[in-house]
């Protein structure tokens, strides 16, 4: 007999969860007490979760990063900041609800917040385009960053997006230019910027607000150049091989810290941020406090120079005839 694979665990967990759901409905509708049965199943579900999340695969981490119950931007804003004043619009086309911008205080000190704004349910997600900004969203974020620069206030950017929106209107209004402009301007922003990747860091749509002095990443967030599904579709013409692609892309916080892309990994509760949001907020608050404290002491010139050097050295090169190694 072979030992159960992660896929077996997933399937079993889904079955147990469905059964719990069915019994709950039954107990509601028939006014029966099925607590005994349900608690047995819940124990079983917990065991399976433990088996899965003790050593989650890259694909499991992708699922956690996308979990609808995971804390989203509005939760972080409410938990970590006071005196929040939301800003609207890019002054060119419209206000993009997929991108948040605002002024606020963090432990009494002024900051500018920007971030992808995913919803917690389908209705909210439709209104906010699932956290996929249009060009006007990036332009709103840039406007907020320039405001922060003008008043030498630090920027805190929360990254959580499947990516840029593949729509014709987004193309017509120049989403490539909007992302490129944000990347360039953020790279030379004359004020501090801290990036927190909280969920999905989807390619250019994520990077458009992620060129920070410090890049923090939650343990079960992901950051990638292409979705695992998209990667699998290109490589193998088969999007169902996304779990393999997720492993190949090295998109987890641990991987990215090893590659030098992420400065610090913020620990999540067992089995994901949604299981104990307050613990996650405390973790993020502590990291923001530490890094903001350090960055406030650095001059704008020095910030810009260090930020350039930080991104300048990313990449692994090979000089023909010379051994492979990190770029200079």
């Amino acid at each position, binding site marked *: 007999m072979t030992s159960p694979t992660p896929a077996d665990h997933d399937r079993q967990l889904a079955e147990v969860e469905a059964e719990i759901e069915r019994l709950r409905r039954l107990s509601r509708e028939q006014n029966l007490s099925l607590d005994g049965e349900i608690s047995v199943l819940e124990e079983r579900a917990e065991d399976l979760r433990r088996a899965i999340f003790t050593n989650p695969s890259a694909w499991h981490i992708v699922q956690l990063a996308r979990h609808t119950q995971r804390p989203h931007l509005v939760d972080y804003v409410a938990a970590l900041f006071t005196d929040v004043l939301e800003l609207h619009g890019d002054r060119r086309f419209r206000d993009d609800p997929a991108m948040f911008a605002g002024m606020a205080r963090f432990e009494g000190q002024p900051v500018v917040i920007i971030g992808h704004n995913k919803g917690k349910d389908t209705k909210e997600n439709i209104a906010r385009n699932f956290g996929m900004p249009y060009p006007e969203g990036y332009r709103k974020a840039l406007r907020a960053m320039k405001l922060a620069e003008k008043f030498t206030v630090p920027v805190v950017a929360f990254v959580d997006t499947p990516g*840029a*929106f*593949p*729509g*014709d209107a*987004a*193309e*017509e*209004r*120049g*989403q*490539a*230019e909007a*992302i*490129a*402009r944000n*990347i*360039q*301007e953020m*790279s*030379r922003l004359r004020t501090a910027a801290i990036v927190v990747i909280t969920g999905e860091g989807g*390619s*250019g749509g994520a*990077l*458009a607000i992620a*060129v920070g002095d410090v890049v923090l990443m939650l343990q079960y967030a992901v*950051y*990638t*150049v*292409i979705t695992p599904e998209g*990667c699998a579709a*290109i*490589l193998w013409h088969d999007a169902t091989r996304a779990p*393999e692609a997720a492993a*190949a*892309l*090295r*998109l987890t916080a641990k991987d*990215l810290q090893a*590659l030098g*892309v992420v400065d610090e990994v913020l620990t999540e509760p067992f089995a994901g941020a949604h299981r104990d949001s307050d613990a996650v907020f405390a973790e993020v608050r502590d990291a923001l406090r530490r890094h903001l404290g350090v960055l406030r002491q650095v001059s704008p010139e020095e910030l810009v120079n260090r*930020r*350039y050097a930080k*991104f*300048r050295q*990313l*990449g*692994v*090169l*090979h*000089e*023909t*005839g010379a051994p*492979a*190694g990190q*770029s*200079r």
Partner: protein
Amino acid sequence: MLNWLRRPKYGSLQRREMPAGIWAKCPRCSNLIYRKELERSLRVCPKCTYHHRLSAEERLAITLDEDGFVEFDGSLTSADPLSFVGYAQKLEEARQKTGRPEAVIWGEGTIEGWRTVAAALDFYFMGGSMGSAVGEKVTRAAERAREARLPLIIFSASGGARMQEGVLSLMQLAKTSAAVGRLHDAGLPYVSIMCDPTTGGVTASFAFLGDVILAEPGATIGFAGRRVIEQTIRRKLPDDFQTAEFCLHKGLIDMVVARSEMRRTLAGLLAFFGGPRLEKPVPEVAAPQGAQT
């Protein structure tokens, strides 16, 4: 000096989209064209004006003055940092196919006597995709232009970021955009030319950050792929969607320039920007690290 600029132009057509022999078939209009005629017209179809794709070396050969191009970092290539499935083999195949180590060439040369740093991406090398080496070379080109106070010209032809290097390829968007930003801060001109096709991560970084942005007629230019967009919005897109002409109409680029006019247009821009002119037949440049002469 590289000898490839002195080789007969378009000497390697057989292994590209052209059948070997005296006649070539246009991939757009399917007409048979006398190959010599096609080469005389810089590989623009005389029947339908389709601008055939060029390799990076062909591109630089028809754009820059015949002598004086110095390539830098010719031996710099990407490694395989993630040990990504199949990547090492794909790189090797691309090297065999193109005879070049990577998807970009950069160096210094002149256009009608105007000195410039120039780079060209090669769509024939893994779709011109940007990994660590392409990002590094574009960055070094921008840094070189800044140090030598020269203009920068980049011909893009790319499917986007090189997926096989994972997020490190995404980071090349940041690296190149930041380098171009420094060039702008230094008051130096940067002309971006989008050739067929320029899509994905290259558009979301240096290609859309030019002071002036040109495109070749009919070039596909866009961030998201056409098929993905059609699936998302659940309708067919018009034929001209994401063409150079469409982008011009939408205000995304400055000019659509026919290949036959490109040299003259670039020389005019360089003259406007008042860059240094070549005094001697071959520029005496202090080569940066990794230069090949």
